[in-house]
């Protein structure tokens, strides 16, 4: 597993394009557009550019447009730009300075779990109902 994972080390600075990746871990500085399955930005990591991924875990800093199924923002994370997500975990301490959109476009999402998207629709309806009630 560790052997298969692409790692950008703490002292590394990469600028360019990354494609055909499955798992990427960033401890250094990356300025790139990436499509991957899992992307981790470590505490020392800085990422600038667009991300299209199933899972994104941020402990470092991020700036750009992110499209991800699951996003986990750790306490040390700093995020600016835009996040489009299906599920989001935001830890206490995370610095979020961005536009956040849930369930960006259902047609574009990966159709791996139909029941999951169904649940989220119900949740949205509930939210709308409760807001109406308050008004």
């Amino acid at each position: 597993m560790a052997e298969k994972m692409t790692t950008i080390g703490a002292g590394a600075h990469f600028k360019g394009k990354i494609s055909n990746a499955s798992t990427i871990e960033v401890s250094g500085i990356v300025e790139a557009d990436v499509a991957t399955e899992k992307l981790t930005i470590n505490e020392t990591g800085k990422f600038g550019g667009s991300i299209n991924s199933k899972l994104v875990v941020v402990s470092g800093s991020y700036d750009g447009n992110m499209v991800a199924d699951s996003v986990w923002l750790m306490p040390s994370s700093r995020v600016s730009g835009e996040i489009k997500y299906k599920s989001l975990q935001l830890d206490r301490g995370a610095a979020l300075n961005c536009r956040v959109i849930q369930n960006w476009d259902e047609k574009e999402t990966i159709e791996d779990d139909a029941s999951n998207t169904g649940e989220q629709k119900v949740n949205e309806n509930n939210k709308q109902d409760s807001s109406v009630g308050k008004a």
Partner: protein
Amino acid sequence: MADVTYISPEIKMDGTLDVTSAKGSTVVLAGHYKGEMRAVDVKLETGSTFNGKIFAQSTEIGGKVNGDIQTKSLKLTSSARFEGSILTDELAIDVGAEVSGSISKLQKS
């Protein structure tokens, strides 16, 4: 571990990678890279492809390389396929390596 940069076999990278800011930093390439690479230690594994320029202290090549290399010490293993120019002080070429291009000394004595 954190200061090692590893590029896995399936990946394609295009751009510039600079790892000279941290001492003793290593880049291991198993995938495909196009562009410029600056590091202390560079290892291009068997099956990797590299297209561009490398600036490093020590370099080991086991993959397919097309480009220029400037390094203090260079080792080409038996699986290496190299085309381009080499600038180095210490050079080792294993039996089986295919090398074509120019080889010259880094520091002229």
